[in-house]
């Protein structure tokens, strides 16, 4: 793992207007209220917080799905703030997203092979059709989907398999950064661990950098190198995961940590106290 910074957010802000009457003063939800952080190459930054704290908005700001109000995003040394549409297209190749709901994020009318080929057709026009097919097959295989499934539609797969396909879809362009927004929250516990293991393996193999957004602290602790804690649009604490989990500084981080169920049965816990 190098110490090079892959992406850096500097004081980024996003306010969403709230609908008010004609003559009332305009009001805003301060979804992301001036936060700064960076992610190093090959590292996983976990972003935790409760619903409405702005963690998903932060992920979307990073890859330009929604524009920032102010502040700058520096990716591989380039400031993306004033990037043109064409430049964004180039950068997005290098930063892909994995979404929460594998039922909603795959087009129901496309076959798996078409879902995976579409990005290649757009970004890698020079590639031959055979090369593309080969890449799709290889990647799906790495993600644990056999090539016999290439001609199937998303509804024919279980939630865990769909998330594997979603991950393959994000990796097909060989990106540097994966922004994963609650990638395992919709999955059953036994499937969740399969997908987490897969994400770790892929990271080792392709030297990927992850921004891992989740409300589940145990999952974030497992996968992250560093962790940022968000609260009402602010980044209240960011540190190595050991620091955050063993020596939290901010009161909100402490509250979050004390709320995690411990997997120690009630009766046993009472004996310990």
């Amino acid at each position, binding site marked *: 793992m190098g110490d090079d910074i892959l992406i850096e957010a500097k004081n980024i802000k996003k306010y969403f207007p709230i609908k008010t009457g004609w003559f009332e003063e305009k009001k805003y939800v301060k979804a992301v209220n001036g936060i700064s952080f960076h992610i190093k190459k090959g590292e996983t930054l976990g972003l935790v917080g*409760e*619903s409405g704290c702005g963690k998903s908005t932060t992920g979307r700001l990073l890859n330009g799905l929604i524009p920032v109000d102010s502040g700058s995003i520096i990716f591989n040394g380039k400031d993306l703030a004033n990037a043109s549409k064409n430049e964004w297209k180039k950068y997005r190749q290098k930063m892909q997203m994995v979404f929460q709901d594998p039922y909603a994020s795959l087009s129901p009318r496309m076959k798996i092979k078409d879902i995976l080929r579409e990005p290649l057709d757009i970004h890698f026009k020079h590639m031959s059709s055979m090369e593309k097919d080969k890449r799709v097959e290889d990647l799906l295989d790495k993600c644990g989907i056999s090539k016999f499934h290439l001609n199937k539609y998303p509804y024919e797969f*279980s939630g*865990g*398999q769909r998330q594997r396909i979603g991950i393959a879809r994000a990796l097909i362009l060989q990106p540097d950064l994966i922004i994963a927004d609650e990638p395992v929250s919709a999955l*059953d*516990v*036994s*499937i*969740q*661990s*399969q997908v*987490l*293991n897969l994400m*770790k393996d892929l990271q080792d193999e392709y030297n990927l950098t992850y921004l891992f957004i989740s*409300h*589940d*602290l*145990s*999952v974030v*602790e*497992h996968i992250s190198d560093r962790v940022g804690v968000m609260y009402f649009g602010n980044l209240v604490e960011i540190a190595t995961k050991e620091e955050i*989990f063993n020596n939290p500084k901010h009161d909100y981080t402490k*509250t*979050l940590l*004390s*709320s*995690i*169920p*411990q*997997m*120690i*049965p*009630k*009766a*046993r816990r009472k004996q310990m106290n």
Partner: protein
Amino acid sequence: MPDLLEVKNLKTGFHTENGFLPVVHGISFHVNQGEIVGLVGESGSGKSVTSLSILRLFHDTHGEIVDGGILYKGENILTFSEKKMTKYRGKELSMIFQEPMTALNPVLKIGKQMRETIILHLGMSKKEAHQYAIEKLKSVGIPRAEQVMEDYPHQLSGGMRQRVIIAMQISCNPSLLIADEPTTALDVTIQAQILKLMEEIQEKTNMGILLITHDLGVVAEICDRVIVMYAGRIVEEATAVELFENPKHPYTKGLIESAPKIGSKKDRLNSITGTVPNPNNMPKGCKFAPRCPSAMPICHEKEPELMADGDHTMRCWLFDEEVEKKGEMQYG
């Protein structure tokens, strides 16, 4: 004295276009007064269908209870008339659902919804019911309860709504509370508050609680006894301490090990391979065998019965004396 709730050999399923699809395959368990029992399983294990069956809320969904009995204080609920059942729902047995966003009527004020149950079951006047409802809201830790009575559900946060629902469900002092994933839709800090609240209420009223969840962390937090379901069957049952410290069934072990734990230095999680079988296409033999790391030849042939070891029961050939004697283990 009979158990508070006894479910005997319950078999339920759905009528589909392709005929009858069994979902719960003859499960039996009980809940005592003053006990919190956890019913754990992944999606499709039949846990919610079980809870709906107990309240007989199952028939509207093309579902049918085909066999078995549900005894509440010794009386079989399944033989009750619909009129009698209505009297029991909310008064004797009540239920908390997962989604606090959809369980309340969006166009009625909280006060009206609270009073409705109280007037119906406790026969109070509107004025009395109003006061009583405010008391109940206060008892679940809702500040400014008088104002909340005048609010609509959308004006409250998720945690507040779940508190309102709990207040409503315990307002008629039921003996049995069924909570189906009561904290799944809530943030972790709110979840901790709600679990603590449920535990306090249980200690105060000595009611029995059946808590249905997929989250073993939640189970450990408040349950006394745990039932693990897989593919419509009970695969293991034990006290919470026994289950977490000495799990027997490979599925339970897998579930416990696949959850990431804070502070563990492990780089990879021990995951369970494969997926839950489709009810249309159940494997022969043990339903978990295709995913089981210790499966033996017999597991793919014959489904094991529940076996008891004191208070600890499991459905697994690994613990069958005959199988052990024959030395089938060596093939495992």
